[in-house]
């Protein structure tokens, strides 16, 4: 069961390594954007898969007491409040950062990037409104 649980992250890690190696071997034969995407994907998938495998390893080594303590820390109301407040603040900082990038792209006349950043800002605000509506119904 444990082996099956680790199969997907292990396969993903293999895929990430393969993708990274392929991008490195192909080198100049790939265009810069394709190479960037390949390395980016390899890094993201590899990071996620490696963290899953590392967590699974620690999960096996925890004693029942340690596991109980970790589970308690996960649902502890102060920890939950800390995570929520941090996420809330982070969203605001991200929005300010996006606005900064938006004006920077306007100044530098980066057509596609201006559109992308604008879309990200709109999405951010849409997610915010959707979540406001969701929580208004819940609370």
């Amino acid at each position, binding site marked *: 069961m444990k082996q099956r649980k680790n199969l997907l992250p292990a396969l993903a890690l293999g895929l990430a390594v393969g993708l990274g190696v392929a991008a490195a071997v192909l080198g100049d034969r790939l265009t810069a954007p394709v190479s960037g995407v390949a390395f980016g994907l390899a890094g993201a998938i590899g990071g996620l898969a490696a963290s899953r495998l590392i967590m699974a390893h620690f999960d096996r080594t925890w004693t029942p007491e340690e596991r109980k303590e970790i589970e*308690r820390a996960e649902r502890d*109301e*102060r*920890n939950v*409040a800390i995570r929520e407040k941090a996420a809330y603040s982070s969203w605001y900082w991200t929005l300010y950062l996006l606005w900064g990038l938006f004006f920077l792209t306007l100044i530098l006349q980066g057509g596609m990037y201006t559109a992308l950043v604008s879309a990200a800002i709109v999405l951010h605000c849409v997610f915010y409104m959707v979540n406001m509506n969701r929580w208004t119904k819940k609370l």
Partner: protein
Amino acid sequence: MTNKIAQLRKERRISQAELADAVDVTRQTIISLENGRYNASLLLAHRIAKYFGLTIEEVFLFEEEEP
């Protein structure tokens, strides 16, 4: 909001870890409650009061804040 958690705990010789275990929070939360850095939710306040066999008002002291 202030509370009598530290006082009640010392009177009854209960450790922070024991109280945390009983009300299903971390010891750090008990420390923060005792220091007044964190205000308990109604649910946690209820659990703590119940643990000491008291009412919420007997453990937690609500003070009207100046506007």
